[in-house]
C-alpha cells in the first residue's frame, strides 16, 4: 500500500510548507535526525506532535513554538498578532496544557515597516494574551533590508505545566472524531481577500485562542479524550491523516455532518478548492472514546467558540493511516493538499 510517499527532492519547495506528507517527511529526514530525544516518558521532535513535553516529577513542562507569515498582515477577523498568540496558545492546549505560563515573541521587521501598523498589531497581541490568560515575557527584534521579507514575521513560543499529556496518537477502532466548529474558515477567508478575485463576502477568519474551551472539554471528558490536533496548515485533512498515521487506524468521516459556513462552501465552489484542506486557526479535532463522546460534545458546545461542534466520524481497523470520506453518495479517500491552495478552472 503506497501512502505518503517519501519525498526526496534536492530543493525545498512550497509543498514542504503545507502541513502535509512532504513536511512530515522533511522533519523526519532532516530536522529530527539525531535531535530531540529526551528519553523515556518525554515527548521530543520525533513525535512531531503539536509541542514537546518534559517530565518534571509527576507533572510535565510543555513547550511549543510557531512562526507566522501571513499575507495580508491584517485580514477580516484578525491580524498576524492575534494569529501569533492564538497559534501557540492553541498548540499548548493540544498537548493538554490549557493554562499557558508565558509566551515569548520574536519579530523580524522589514526596513520601512509602518510604526502605526506595528503598534496596532501589538495592541491585538495584548488583547489575545489577555483573552488567553497569559503574557509575553521575553522576545527578540531583528530588522531586515527592504524587499528581503514580506513586511513582518512573528515567532512565538509558549510554555505550560500539565498533569496529563494528550498526544495526537493512541486512537483505537470505535473512537469518535469530533470537530469544535465550522471547517476551512481561515484559509478561504484569506484567499477571498486577494483583491484580484474581487469577492465580496462577510467571511472572516476564525482565529482565536481556544484554551479555555479545551480546558472545559478536558474537565468533562478526562481520560476519555485520547487525541487532540489543531487543523491549521493543510486543514482537517492533514490533521486527520496525522492522527490516523500515528495511531495506526483508518478514519471514516461522514461528510454531510462536517459543519461548513455557506460562504466557505461558496468560495470553495467558486475557486475549486476543497474546504477540508483549508486552514483553521480557532478549531480543534478531538479523538474521543465512544462512551465519553456525548459528554465532551456538550461541554464544547456550551462554550461560545464551540457552539457548532459536531461528531463527524470514527476510527476503524481497515486501511490504517488512510482517511475515507463517506460523501452520502459514495465514498472516497481524502487526499492532502499538494503545495499552496490555488484557484482551479477545471
Amino acid at each position, binding site marked *: 500500500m503506497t501512502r505518503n510517499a517519501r519525498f526526496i527532492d534536492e530543493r525545498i519547495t512550497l509543498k514542504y510548507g503545507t502541513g502535509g506528507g512532504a513536511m512530515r517527511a522533511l522533519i523526519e529526514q532532516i530536522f529530527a535526525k539525531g535531535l530531540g530525544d529526551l528519553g523515556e516518558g518525554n515527548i521530543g521532535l520525533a513525535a512531531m506532535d503539536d509541542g514537546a513535553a518534559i517530565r518534571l516529577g509527576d507533572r510535565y513542562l510543555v513547550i511549543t513554538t510557531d512562526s507566522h507569515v501571513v499575507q495580508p498582515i491584517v485580514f477580516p477577523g484578525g491580524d498576524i498578532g492575534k494569529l501569533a498568540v492564538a497559534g501557540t496558545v492553541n498548540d499548548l492546549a493540544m498537548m493538554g496544557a490549557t493554562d499557558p505560563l508565558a509566551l515569548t515573541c520574536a519579530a523580524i521587521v522589514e526596513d520601512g515597516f509602518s510604526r502605526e501598523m506595528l503598534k496596532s498589531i501589538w495592541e491585538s497581541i495584548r488583547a489575545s494574551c489577555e483573552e488567553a490568560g497569559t503574557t509575553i515575557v521575553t522576545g527578540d527584534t531583528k530588522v531586515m533590508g527592504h524587499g528581503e521579507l514580506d513586511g513582518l514575521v512573528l515567532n512565538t513560543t509558549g510554555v505550560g505545566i500539565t498533569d496529563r499529556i494528550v498526544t495526537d496518537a493512541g486512537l483505537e477502532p470505535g473512537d469518535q472524531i469530533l470537530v469544535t466548529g465550522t471547517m476551512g474558515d481561515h484559509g478561504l477567508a484569506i484567499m477571498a481577500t486577494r483583491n484580484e478575485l474581487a469577492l465580496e463576502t462577510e467571511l472572516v477568519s476564525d482565529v482565536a485562542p481556544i484554551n479555555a474551551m479545551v480546558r472545559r472539554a478536558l474537565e468533562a471528558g478526562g481520560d476519555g479524550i485520547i487525541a487532540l490536533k489543531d487543523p491549521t496548515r493543510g486543514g482537517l485533512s492533514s490533521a486527520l491523516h496525522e492522527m490516523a498515521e500515528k495511531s495506526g487506524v483508518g478514519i471514516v468521516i461522514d461528510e454531510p455532518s462536517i459543519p461548513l459556513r455557506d460562504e466557505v*462552501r461558496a468560495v470553495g465552489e467558486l475557486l475549486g478548492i476543497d474546504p477540508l484542506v483549508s486552514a483553521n486557526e480557532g478549531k480543534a479535532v478531538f479523538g474521543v472514546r465512544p462512551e465519553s463522546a456525548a459528554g465532551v460534545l456538550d461541554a464544547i458546545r456550551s462554550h461560545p467558540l464551540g457552539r457548532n461542534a459536531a461528531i463527524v466520524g470514527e476510527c476503524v481497523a481497515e486501511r490504517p493511516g488512510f482517511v475515507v470520506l463517506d460523501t452520502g453518495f459514495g465514498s472516497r479517500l481524502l487526499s492532502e493538499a499538494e503545495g499552496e491552495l490555488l484557484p482551479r478552472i477545471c
Partner: protein
Amino acid sequence: MCLGVPGKVVDVDRDRNTATVDFWGVKKEVRLEVCDAPVAPGDYILNHVGFAIRRIPPEEAVETLALYDELLRLADDQ
C-alpha cells in the same frame, strides 16, 4: 474541463457590461460579453473564469429535475 458555478444576478451595470452575482452569499462581478442572452436582476447565470456563459431560465432547473424523476419512473417500470 470547465468549473461552472450557477449564481443569481443582483445588479447589472449596462455601460461596463457586467453583472453583480450572488453565489450563496458571496458576491462577485461577472462579465457579460459572452452570455447567450441579456440578463436582469433575478436571473440565474452560469459563471466560468469570471464570465457568464449562460443565462439559466429558472424553469429549466425544474425541468431537469422532472427529467430525472421521469427517468426513475421509466427505470422502475422496466
